[in-house]
């Protein structure tokens, strides 16, 4: 017997998308000169024309941010700054449905995730950081920590509004002003956020949003009027940024790639673990820097776990992101689909065994079926390179020591998962793993109070919690 789900589409009537957008500079929307389209990756429908910021626009945004910093924001008491952030958090909650629908249209992620994860967490980040604004002297950085100045922030397309919140909220709480560039393929929720800033009556120039591509990002990174760069994206671009700012006084935080090991010990609760594996790699189509993309199974339970995992994957619903029953939505762009396809082909070519459940993918849009590769070795590209898609590489191990060695055998160090019912083993493994976030018997959990960020080539610094806040304040002894 099989059950079919009736379509349960979320209405898009709640959003109104303008045919064309400009930049948000000095509290106002400013018309752009050149434009490029942003598309719904699930349908390839062009949603709007987005302005491409060049030197003049970035200059104007930095100037507006500097002016707001010196004349208003750095002089305002923390108590008052905090109230603006609380306002923003509240307006985001009020307009949460609008944000969720817009995010799903522009990004391709299931409405269930944008509605239940991205948007509530984004609002929570503002609410959390609002409370820091008048308590900075208790953040452990001396009695009068100072903001850095103007922060240039460049964010990715996988969690557009959430990444904006991770960047903007701590920057503002600490007294900095910002020039933010959303990702080329997902600018719409950032532009809606600009409206929220207006509704919150945030002083002009405290938040400036310029849209564009990598060239706009480079203008921000290299701009002499910027004091701090915060970037989330690929390790490759992160290194370019690290080199670019090396001769300058700019401070930098980088949240980069990952190739997380998700380790299943033989005493793990198997059914829970299977849910965790699915969440670890198929959440947000695997477009997650901390995705559990390397599954390490203890040999004596590998067969059982794989059997149950495949059964579970048969039931994953791939399709219309606006459908409330959808588990896995569209791949964010044609380019990303090409990258995933190429790496999966490398998995085939290098001798791993590919498996996907039978699923019908929509004819239009960018889609990739949930996929697992078994028989993967550590030398395979799919075990070493970040795929950033719904593709899981499965490896096995015999001893806990071997699991740790394999897990740490990567230049990345962002996250890792541990599945075991034995507390001492879980804590031992969490000590041994060289990663910034460890999920034990859970995966892909986020919270504004919980520092997030990586070891090694997964980046510099943390976001969230007291640790994340310190990235926007001048320390004591540090030059």
């Amino acid at each position, binding site marked *: 017997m099989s059950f079919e789900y009736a379509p349960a589409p979320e209405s898009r009537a709640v959003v109104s998308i303008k045919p064309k957008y400009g930049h948000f500079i000095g509290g106002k929307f400013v018309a752009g000169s050149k434009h490029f389209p942003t598309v719904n990756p699930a349908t390839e429908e062009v949603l709007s024309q987005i302005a491409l910021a060049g030197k003049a626009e970035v200059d104007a945004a930095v100037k507006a941010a500097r002016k707001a910093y010196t004349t208003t924001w750095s002089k305002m008491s923390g108590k008052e700054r905090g109230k603006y952030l609380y306002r923003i958090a509240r307006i985001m909650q009020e307009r949460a449905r609008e944000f969720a629908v817009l995010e799903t249209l522009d990004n391709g992620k299931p409405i269930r995730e944008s509605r239940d994860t991205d948007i509530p967490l984004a609002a929570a980040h503002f609410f959390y950081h609002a409370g820091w604004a008048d308590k900075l002297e208790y953040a452990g950085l001396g009695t009068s920590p100072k903001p850095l100045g103007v922060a240039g922030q460049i964010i990715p397309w996988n969690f557009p509004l959430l990444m904006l919140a991770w960047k903007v909220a701590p920057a503002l709480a600490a007294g900095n002003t910002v020039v933010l560039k959303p990702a080329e393929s997902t600018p719409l929720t950032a532009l809606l956020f600009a409206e929220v800033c207006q509704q919150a009556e945030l002083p002009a120039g405290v938040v400036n949003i310029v849209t564009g591509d990598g060239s706009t990002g480079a203008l921000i990174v290299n701009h002499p009027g910027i004091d701090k760069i915060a970037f989330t994206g690929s*390790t490759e671009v992160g290194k370019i940024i690290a080199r670019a700012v090396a001769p300058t006084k700019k401070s930098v935080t980088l949240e980069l790639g990952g190739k997380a090991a998700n380790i299943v010990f033989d005493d793990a609760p198997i059914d829970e673990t299977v849910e965790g594996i699915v969440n670890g790699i198929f959440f947000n189509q695997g477009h997650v820097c901390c995705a559990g993309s390397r599954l390490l199974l203890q040999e004596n339970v590998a067969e059982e776990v794989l059997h149950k995992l495949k059964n579970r994957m048969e039931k994953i619903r791939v399709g219309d992101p606006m459908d409330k029953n959808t588990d896995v939505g569209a791949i964010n762009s044609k380019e990303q689909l090409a990258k995933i396809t190429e790496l999966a082909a490398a998995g085939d070519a290098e001798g791993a065994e590919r498996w996907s459940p039978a699923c019908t993918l929509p004819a239009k849009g960018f889609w990739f079926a949930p996929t697992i590769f078994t028989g993967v070795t550590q030398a395979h590209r799919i075990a070493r390179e970040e795929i950033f898609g719904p593709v899981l590489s499965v490896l096995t191990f015999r001893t806990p020591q071997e699991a740790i060695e394999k897990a740490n055998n990567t*230049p990345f160090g962002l996250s890792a998962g541990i599945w075991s019912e034995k507390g001492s083993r879980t804590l031992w493994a969490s000590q041994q793993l060289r*990663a910034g*976030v460890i999920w034990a018997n*859970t995966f892909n*959990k986020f919270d504004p109070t919980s520092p997030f960020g990586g070891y090694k080539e997964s980046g510099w610094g943390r976001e969230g*919690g*007291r640790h994340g806040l310190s990235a926007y304040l001048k320390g004591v*002894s540090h030059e």
Partner: protein
Amino acid sequence: MSNRIDVKKTYKLYINGAFPRTESGRTYEVKSAKGAFIANPCLASRKDLRDAVVAARAAHAGWNKATAYNRGQILYRIAEMLEGRRAQFVDEIMQVTGVTKVKAEKEVTDSVDRLVWYAGWTDKVASLAGSTNPVAGPFYNFTIPESMGVVAAIAPETPSLLGFIDVVAPIITSGNTVVILASTKAPLSAMTFAEVLATSDLPHGVINILTGKKEEIAPWMASHMDIDALDISGLPAKLHAETKVAGAENLKRIHSFKSADPGRIIAFMEAKTVWHPIGL
């Protein structure tokens, strides 16, 4: 006045608890403040650096795993050993740098006290830099700081002993191991300090000391793929940019500091956050 001929010391490197000569066979001359010959310390090479990194990497697992209490006692033991050899360090500092006895004595006193200060930090820094995080869900969530791994460092030219200790002590306090290039003009304090380390129960390879030229060794430190972080406090400012560019290849954490501060310890630690569900 006896006319006995002194037994002079050969200054070598300190790698993995041993005192090897540089594999390059090169030395350079160290002179007193008045220009008289004192010693021919090693002019360390890239190969010496690589050997030292191998030792430091091998030592990291054990030092990192040692209890904070144990690390604290060993740091304190280093202070004890230094205290016992005050006179030798005072003489060496005076001879090489030409400072007065009062100044040299103060430098050694400060060095001992600094080591004692860091000894007390080993089991306290986690409560400063760690946290439990009240996440909105049924999870126990905590953040602990831990050591990064192998840190390479450049000691400042002066003060040759205190400056060296200011760099090296905070790095090892948290469980990192270190490869450090001593002051070029005044390397003797650092190399004599190695003798203190050798008798302080410090596990081999935790501190490895090279002598030589900053502009020669720093680029190899910056580009070495098995070094996790760099302390460039002792590197001339004009070399910072190129060092940071080279260090970006594996995204080394690169810092320089002005003063002794727990921030120096924390800068070479990674914050690790662990989530675990709460439930019956």
